[in-house]
């Protein structure tokens, strides 16, 4: 109650307003297919709102918290309904897509939302402890980050597995069948890593918009392949059932929240890692097998990663920038007091509650939408809008990056490796730089 009273104090009500606005905006942003929130928010904040002239840093941060919390909960909806699984394209269908294929997409989304809400409550509950332990943890881990990232890279590559099922009389045929998928994963990782080295070493976009130089990379690696596969997808969305209850017990809730929180916090604290990597590692570490557990844990992991990485930015005395949004706000950052930190914790809880309440009507809206509008058309419209947008903000250099990154992004989809390998785009160059070999690799590539 104390936190709520503090947040609802008249002097802080403008922050509540901006936070609420952020949640509502995140609903809109979540509906823009295939675009990551960081990209949208960067353009939105700097070009549309001209926030530097109109908002204080605290108001801007409150808006960003609202958007981040809202996005981490609400973006599951379009991700579920605007890209159904296609067994002719995928080796395996993730549990969320499987639920949707069984008409239980609503249940899957609510499970994800419960997981996210649990993770954010846990994050807020231990926020005071962060003040004590994180500065020390930062000092302890700082010299070791490069090998931690190296270990994660090894884990990503080694955890790719052979998916071939056919058997031939030729040993070589069997060998290639087994190693083909693993090689695709490895090649995808290497190619995306080289792309990352190029993009980080040379700015191919106008320097006036350089903060968006990573935009074409991510749009190409993740968004456009998703849209393209949606367009050629022959999978269909079966009728969806709006359930009135959820098949979940407390044990599953706590296990999912705990596992998801571990993965989310790990990926939030260690630079460059994402929720996908953290969630995978935490899932393996906590031996998750139940699909409900997987879905809920994924929701926790994603929310804790997005919100947690941004939240680290506001911890007084920590000086830690993780995640794209923290980097976007960094030029305007000012010193945060413990009182302001407490306000942000309260705003996270507030935004999490509002977002969860919005989740169910938002899901019903999305179901109604995909019943009326073909997702193929939505994807096509999004693709047509995306390419000119990249050109406007990043020029011809951005389009070149977009084309290459789209090709690399299509590799794991078309040849059945995991998209996780695309994380090499940041993991490889950053790990090399931290280990002190970055300039050697750039020299080898002729980029110095």
């Amino acid at each position: 109650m104390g936190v709520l009273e503090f947040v609802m104090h008249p002097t802080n009500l403008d922050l509540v307003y901006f936070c609420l606005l952020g949640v509502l905006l995140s609903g809109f942003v979540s509906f823009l297919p295939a675009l990551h929130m960081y990209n949208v928010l960067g353009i939105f904040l700097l070009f549309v709102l001209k926030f530097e002239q109109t908002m204080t840093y605290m108001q801007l941060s409150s808006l960003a918290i609202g958007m981040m919390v809202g996005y981490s909960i609400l973006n599951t909806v379009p991700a579920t309904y605007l890209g159904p699984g296609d067994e002719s394209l995928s080796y395996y269908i993730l549990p969320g897509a499987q639920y949707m294929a069984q008409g239980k997409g609503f249940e899957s989304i609510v499970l994800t939302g419960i997981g996210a809400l649990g993770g954010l409550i846990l994050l807020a509950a231990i926020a005071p402890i962060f003040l004590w332990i994180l500065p020390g943890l930062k000092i302890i881990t700082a010299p070791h980050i490069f090998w931690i990232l190296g270990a994660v890279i090894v884990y990503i590559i080694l955890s790719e597995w052979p998916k071939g099922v056919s058997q031939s009389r030729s040993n070589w045929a069997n060998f290639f069948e087994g190693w083909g998928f693993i090689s695709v994963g490895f090649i995808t990782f290497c190619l995306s890593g080289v792309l990352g080295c190029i993009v980080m070493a040379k700015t191919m976009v106008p320097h006036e918009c350089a903060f968006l130089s990573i935009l074409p990379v991510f749009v190409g690696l993740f968004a456009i392949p998703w849209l393209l596969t949606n367009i050629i997808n022959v999978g269909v969305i079966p009728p969806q059932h709006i359930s009135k209850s959820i098949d979940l017990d407390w044990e599953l809730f706590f296990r999912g929240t705990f596992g998801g929180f571990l993965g989310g916090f790990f990926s939030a604290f260690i630079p460059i890692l994402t929720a996908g990597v953290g969630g995978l590692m935490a899932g393996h570490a906590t031996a998750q097998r139940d699909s409900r557990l997987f879905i809920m844990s994924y929701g926790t992991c994603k929310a804790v990663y997005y919100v947690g990485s941004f939240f680290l930015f506001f911890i007084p005395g920590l000086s830690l920038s993780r995640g794209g949004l923290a980097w976007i706000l960094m030029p305007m950052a000012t010193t945060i007091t413990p009182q302001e930190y407490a306000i942000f914790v309260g705003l996270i809880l507030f935004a999490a509650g509002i977002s969860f309440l919005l989740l169910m009507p938002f899901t019903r809206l999305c179901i109604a939408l995909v019943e009326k509008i073909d997702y193929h058309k939505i994807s096509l419209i999004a693709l047509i809008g995306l390419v000119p947008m990249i050109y406007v903000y990043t020029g011809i250099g951005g389009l070149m990056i977009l084309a290459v990154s789209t090709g690399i992004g299509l590799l794991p989809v078309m040849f059945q490796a995991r998209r996780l390998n695309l994380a090499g785009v940041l993991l490889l160059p950053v790990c090399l730089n931290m280990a002190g070999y970055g300039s050697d690799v750039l020299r080898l590539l002729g980029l110095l």
Partner: protein
Amino acid sequence: MEAERGNPLALPTGEYKTETHCPSCGRFVGISERCPYCRALTRKRLSIRVFKVIAVLTSTIGLAILLFFAQTIKTPEVKINQLGPLSNFAHVRIIGTVDRSYGVHPQWKSLSFTVQQPDSMGEPCTIRVFAYAKTVVEIEKSNKVPMDGDQISVDGQVRFQKDSPSLLVNAPEHISIIKRAEDAAAEKPPLEPGKVAAEHVGKIVTVKGAVGDVVGFPRGMLIRLEDGGQGLAVWIPSKLADDLNMAIQAGDLVLASGKVKPYKDSLEIEVFTQTGFKVISKGKGGPSQELPPAGRESEGTVEEAAMGSGDSGPSETPESFGGASETGLTASSAIELPCTSLASITKEMAGQAVRVVGVLNKIVAYKTGVKLIVADGSALVAVWMPNEISAGLPIPTEGAKLSVEGVVAVYKDEIQIQPRDAGDMSVLP
């Protein structure tokens, strides 16, 4: 197919089934193009095959073309005032003058310096440039650590934080020294010490003059060049003094290149590099106002003069200027300052080295050090011993007779004598 797309909620039939099931045995094959059970070919639809080819071509040939294109990109040269929050992460080149070089951090091995360039109105704009330890090792190896006043071209990634930009350097190739300040200064005829004026502040100059006095400090060595007045101070940091490892004595004719800086009410020159300080010819222990009378009369070195001085007996002679002995500049180590009465020490003497003898009147302990109030019958003066100097020293009792050497300083309008190391204070019998 079209019928299915017309009804988004239709069940998977038709083409979907032919794509996912073997046309020969009818079993599920998923993504496999050859049935794992009967080895029948299960061709996927054209769109998938086309995208597979596109993916392979753009990710390999496309990446190679992108790499080639990136190799040809010349880093754009920008002005510091053109950088804003939207330039965050841009890789840009800045050409300017090193305003202040902080050198390589002794503990973290990082490098930091600021580069200055005038804006369109002629006002100076500065940007902080930094590099992390692993890059700094290579920068040091290639002798590219920038010094004050150097004209440099530096490529780096813009980091914009709290309304101010900085530049992160990731490779030694990204720093190129256009002209060393020392070389530029050396091209001009050296100044006489007396000609260094306020207009030279912030600039690199070369002066030529005779050494009047050498005083050692824990952090460096102060050499006063005779200029007909108080002397022009030349400051050599201790690390550089260690590297130089040369004996300097009063009367030596030296050439010093460095940045002119104000220090209290006077000017001093700070030398940054080994080549910035040269002894042109050895002196003969020439006259110096700071030297004891024997030194002035002697034709020998200052060291010899000091040792032969009969004015101050061995019992009253503190061991040495510890800083001098640490730095390797040996001449000053034996310089003994004349004893100064406390009443004659004035605020105007701030920065000067003095030696006083008196009785310890009072000890005041602070968190950061100890203040000793010393009296000699003519006046009282505070001697400030910070913890790093007083640690390990036996605390003299009140009433003890002390000999203290140090630099005169003014702290909160109070005159203090600040010893430079533990050897600067001794208890006399």
